[in-house]
């Protein structure tokens, strides 16, 4: 896919050209959001929002970073916002018990070991988790992560290292294999 050509088409009024973008990115964006939220249905909703925002953004502004980084930035902000809302919700009384149990029945079936990895990852603070997922799951270089999150490479290196240390501790406690 030639991003520049597609974006030019969209700006020229070809809304359907955006389908190419969605097709190209949807799997990785949904997976990314799933890793950040731990909730597959939510990840799908957030991915939709992300693409809609991206579409509006293309019409408005020339992004100052690459399209991919920008798309992931929108996705990241959406995930974090979701996280914050969920935290807020937990303070509101009278929510049903079912909603209190996070992610119940919304996970993708997977082998036991990977479940332990999932659980450990979800307990890591969001900034560090984001960096870990972007690097290991989405295959971003530190430089690309820095571009996406609008921070320095130094900060990314720190967050990855700290995130890994936390992950090791949490994974061992979750009952996974000792590494």
């Amino acid at each position: 896919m030639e991003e520049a050509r597609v974006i030019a088409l969209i700006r020229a009024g070809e809304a359907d050209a955006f389908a190419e973008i969605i097709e190209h990115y949807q799997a990785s964006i949904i997976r990314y959001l799933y890793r950040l939220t731990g909730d597959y249905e939510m990840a799908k909703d957030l991915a939709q929002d992300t693409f809609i925002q991206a579409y509006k953004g293309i019409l408005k502004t020339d992004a100052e970073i690459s399209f991919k980084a920008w798309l992931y930035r929108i996705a990241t902000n959406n995930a974090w916002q979701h996280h914050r809302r969920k935290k807020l919700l937990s303070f509101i009384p009278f929510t049903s018990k079912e909603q209190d149990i996070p992610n119940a029945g919304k996970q993708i079936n997977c082998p036991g070991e990977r479940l332990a990895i999932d659980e450990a990852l979800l307990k890591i603070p969001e900034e560090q988790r984001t960096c870990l997922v972007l690097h290991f799951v989405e295959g971003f270089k530190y430089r690309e992560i820095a571009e996406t999150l609008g921070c320095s490479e130094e900060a990314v290196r720190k967050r990855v290292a700290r995130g890994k240390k936390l992950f090791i501790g949490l994974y061992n406690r979750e009952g996974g294999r000792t590494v």
Partner: protein
Amino acid sequence: MNCRDLEELLSAYADGELSRTQREFIEEHLSSCADCRETLAQFEAAGRQLSSLRETQIASDIRTTTLSKIKATKALPDKPYRRWLRPVTAAAAIVAVIAVLLVAQPWGMESPEAMAASIVRNSPEVQAALNGEEIEEVEVTTTIVDEEGKVLAVIVRTERGNAATVEVNLETKKVGKIIRVDVPDFQPGDEQKAIDIAKTDPGVQELLAQGGVIGEVHLGHSLHTGEYISSDGQVRQEAFAIKTAFVDIELEGRQWSATVNLDEGRVMGLGRSSGFPPVLAVIIIASALAFLSGILIIVGLASGSRLASKVASPAAAVIGVIGLACVLFCSLLYLSTSMIWFLLLSTGTAIVGLVLGTIGIKRQLARRKAAITGTVLCSLALVLVLAVVVYPALWNVITITVAIIIILVLASLIVYTSYSQLRKIPRKLLRPAVVALAAVVVLIVALVQPWSVNPEGVIAKAYSATESLLSYRATISGTASEGDGLDSVIEFVFPDRFHAIITSGGETDEFIVVGDKQFVKSGDMSRNMIIAFSNSATSMLSKEATLRLLDSLTDLQRLPDENIEGVSSFHYKGRFDTEKMIEKEKARLAGMQSRMDPDDYQEMMKGLENSLNVKTEVELWIGKDDSLIRQVIQVTQAPDSEGQLHTSSTTLKYYDFNQPILIEPPLDAGGNLLPGWHLNPTLSKEIFFDCRTHFETTGEDPAHQQINAIVTVTNVAMEATAHNVRVELRNSEVIKDGDESPWIKAAPSNSEPVVLKRGEGETFNASWECDTSHIAGDELNELLERTVIKITYLTPEDDEAERMYTAGGAVYPSARPPANPPGK
């Protein structure tokens, strides 16, 4: 290096994110460190586990649903012309807002002057008073009549030159007193005339000598109203307008302003104008720049500029800080016309920052935190502006709160940015460090006392409030460690009417000053004493003296607020900055050195040095609402020549601010002085002599004693020259012609007629024979000292005048014995 410090590098090494040199360094270290090899292995395993999550299969296809949602939101793609629509609309909206602000001043923010003008123009009462003629011009004399500043005095003029003064109540929007008045017109040369007059003032001359530059000249009328009892016994009101000019003089970045009375051709006052402090100027410029660049960025965002989206969020944060600072510094000014523009500027800046911040958040631009910070700061600034507009009295509270907020924000920013560094500090040190930091903060807060109102600001406000006073009354009571106390009531009407009743040692003296005429009603003071006393009284008790006092206070310290005559007042204590005043005075003297007698100059300089030992402590009470001085207590300690300390204290109470006070010359209907009153000529035109007499007695025979009198007369006037000076002597005991005691003439040592310019002297000789056989030796000297010396002379106006002295010691001005007795 500690292996713990290497963890981050090891992690990056495992991820293949190190540069070559870093990689080589780590590999070298790994070869010798088993612990780090273990850590690396853990990191690599974690990486492998996390990477396994890539294999998660995502089967969903959200393409169709997303596209249909996009189409449903009607976010139609922009056609080429539409791409220009947004920036053009944004620019047009901004221009429209600015235009609206400029043309129609927003609700409630109309300047007091404009409000007064529109009230007067629409008033039927004013129309009636002006015989229904059309009002051509409304001039606000910028004089606030009411203590609360709600009444303005204006001059209204019609096409035919009829004019009236009108008081306008801004609160009730009604007109008060209307008095017909003659308003003199300005002539084309008046500005130059004002400058020429200003240049004759010693204060202005000094400023110019120090490198001051004359700036703008503003012309206006100063308005005077008063009540008087007319010949038919009715109380009538009168008003008159004086042509006044304000000549600006700039010196070292400070603005001075000389008030010139063009009608009388003299300078009535010289004061520092309350210009913008430099910090404020910086903030105004910063705010204006922030506003303009913010608008540029908004336009850039609307037209899809890449640069604009990059800088939008940080710009929002910066603009937020500037906007907040702008609002904070507003509180240093009054709610005046310029303040309104300042408020508008800060409002505009805050709105621009708010828009930028919101866009930054909405559009997922970089530096999200900066965008949020900007949004919060700008909202805060807007809330503050709103609070001030609705309820101006909140100012002080807001100033303090904002100051505290800014300090907290800065402190948390510092902590936030240095957070990672903080974690590196060993725990043992961390706790004491935090405690120490807290202690420092508490100390600083205790020293700065952000909850107290800054005394310099209050004094500055008091200065300008006093400066704009039109009239007031004050009582003064003084006590001294020895000698008589002083009680006095003064009245002052701007610019040059002054009335004082001074009681001291059981005697009452009354002064009335109208323009350059001084009237005195006195117990039994000598004429010369009256002149001296009246001059010092007017200079000590005038508005200028109050301003001088405010200008020279230092070491101010706030005491608990107090009520003075029911007015809630700030209470300060400070001291008179003697050093500063002496330095100023020395500089002034140095400028006059060439025109002075060297001995006098030395003596005055020495006197100034001595006054360094004079300590004056000042307590003052300033009304909270109007910043006017309510009370001043001055305690002065001065050592005499023997080093003995003398204490005197003065209490001044001010009241009746801007009330109509009538001060009239003490003249009857025919223009003659009322009984007991004298008219003092001004000192500058008066001639005074220093008169010293020395006697020589010769001859052996007491019955035919020869007496020689040598009289030295020196003209010590300020400037006037005495012509045809003649000296005569009389003594009923020792100058006798039979039973008569005539005036005997003393001859000048040079040819007649004697002309004495300022500072010049002449010696006169007289000799006569006297029978001293019945007088004891030492008694003769005493008798001789009773000799009266009459100096007759022609004034510069060619009037014949005379002054009397006694040989034993002149009444005025010299009390000291002659340094070298003349004639020897």
